């Protein structure tokens, strides 16, 4: 079904994904899970990362073609063991999607009531984790560029990175930092042929959103599968060879 929907989007994207090596953090729920399934349908080679081993193994049982990695991007000590497995399993990397996120305090709270520990966790997961993992994988991404590929890092952002929503302080501030980090990194890495983008999927019907806004009406929210489809289309515009994309 996922493949069918994408097929109706742009035909050129179908073949573009075959064999593309993608790593997705936070890959067992919400947008990450939808991305993993859809990318596998498109015959991309996908490694996904998540903290919970049972959930990782469950998804690998569902999709034998997925490479599941148990690890926590908020932990410095996990970054290189994740990187080794991504590169070992995929033999290199074309696209890194930093999707794993932390809300900070749950339930959401004003900054004045946010504990330092909750704020730190949001920064560790939403800023330092993506920074560290990207840095660990930068050599592989640059090698992809030297081989004629168009490597891309996607940092999943939020409108809370731009707008000052009360009670979303830890999440919003950390996503704002990630958003800005993406822009700076994109400028700095242009000389190496690596693109870095920040992408806001919109309000989705995901476990994270349910925790943040328990009384939200799910039908008023975007389905993660729809967001995944939009992101895949966005990515295709970035990774397709310039000559082909411009046709």
């Amino acid at each position, binding site marked *: 079904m996922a493949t069918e929907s994408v097929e109706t989007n742009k035909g050129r994207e179908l073949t573009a994904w075959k064999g593309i090596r993608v790593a997705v953090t936070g890959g067992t729920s919400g947008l990450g899970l939808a991305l993993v399934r859809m990318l596998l349908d498109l015959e991309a080679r996908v490694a996904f990362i998540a903290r919970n081993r049972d959930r990782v193994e469950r998804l690998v049982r569902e999709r034998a073609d997925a490479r599941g990695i148990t690890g926590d991007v908020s932990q410095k000590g996990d*970054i290189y063991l994740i990187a080794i497995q991504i*590169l070992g399993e995929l*033999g290199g990397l074309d696209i890194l999607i930093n999707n794993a996120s932390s809300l900070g305090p749950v339930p959401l709270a004003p900054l004045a009531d946010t504990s330092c520990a909750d704020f730190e966790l949001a920064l560790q997961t939403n800023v330092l984790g993506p920074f560290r993992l990207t840095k660990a994988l*930068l050599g592989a991404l640059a090698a992809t560029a030297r081989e004629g590929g168009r490597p891309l890092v996607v940092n999943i952002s939020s409108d809370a990175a731009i707008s000052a929503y009360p009670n979303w302080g830890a999440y919003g501030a950390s996503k704002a930092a990630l958003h800005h980090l993406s822009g700076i990194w994109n400028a700095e890495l242009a000389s190496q042929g690596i693109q870095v983008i920040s992408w806001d999927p919109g309000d989705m019907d995901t476990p994270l959103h349910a925790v943040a806004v328990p009384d939200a009406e799910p039908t008023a929210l975007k389905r993660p599968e729809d967001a995944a489809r939009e992101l895949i289309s966005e990515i295709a515009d970035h990774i397709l060879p310039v000559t082909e994309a411009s046709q």
Partner: protein
Amino acid sequence: MIPAGVPTQRPPDARLLVVNSGGKIIDMLRASFPTLLRSGDIVVANDAATLPASLFGVHKRTGRSIEVRLAGSESVFHGDVRQFSAVVFGEGNYRTPTELRPSPPELRLGDTLQLGPLTATVLQLLDHPRFVRIRFEDPSASIWEGLARHGRPIQYSHISTPLAVWDTWTPIAGLPVAFEPPSAGFALDWCTLDAIQRRGVDFATITHAAGISSTGDAELDARLPFDEPYRITESAARSIQLARAAGGRLIAIGTTVVRALEHAVSIHGWLRETTGVATNRIGTATELGVVDAILSGTHEPGTSHHRLLSAFVDQRTLAKMDQVLQQHAYRTHEFGDSVFVEKSRDRAADMELVVFVTGYRHDDVLTKAISV
């Protein structure tokens, strides 16, 4: 020389001893390395990331503790993660100098080695009590996870604190296939790469599974370097051909790059896309076919890395370089200072050696030229 005992990849005072093609020996800061390059040159580095290749465990038949250091593989293909050559030590760890480490229990064909979550079998004895070929019996995903979680970087006693994996990955590290870091690449941060490219110098990488540098046993050390698989991609080969055809020099970052490129040239007669296993030994008798200069660590005489430099310069120049390194307290080993050695214009000629020592370190500030 002084062993570099701190795992800092790019200390601000890192030094570089230049031995140029005319026999001049010049002491400078390593950060100035890009100034040695000319527009049209090509710099080639090894982009292999380093596996945590030291695995502690138990020799099941005897119940004795062992450390297995993975030392070689069949190819750099990421799917080839099952079989390795390995050097096995008895109990103890890196804090004991390698040459003082006890031997492992007698290793026999079919012995089982339990290495944390990984199970390995001894497949082949490689003519030395410490040297074997092993096969992991786990699925490849479990092998990668087992190496990532249980493995430690191979380490020697000159560094007292345990190395983390990130200490051993060069900034450009990609595919994790090396067993020890291709440490000449520590010098290359992203600013340096930008500086190189701004000078009109091209940059390419190969992937070469750098093996271990010491086994603790003289007989086995004499067999170093072990066979090392490598891959030169079509785009790297093309960049090198273009640069050389236009008269640019090829500057190799590290001994592994020299070994791989010269091996490929020795097979094909010219440099082209190659996936192979470097079995060559480079030394005095080697006529370099493609490499013009090398940025490398400072190596102790008698090691294979040091011997490789004698393909670039004559023994007298090499001895003078060693003397200057010694006199001016250069740091050695993987986190130490560096040398930049150009292929001499005429290795047989009796060139006058001139040493320029600028003394960037400590309170040893001196700027003078010494004729020798």
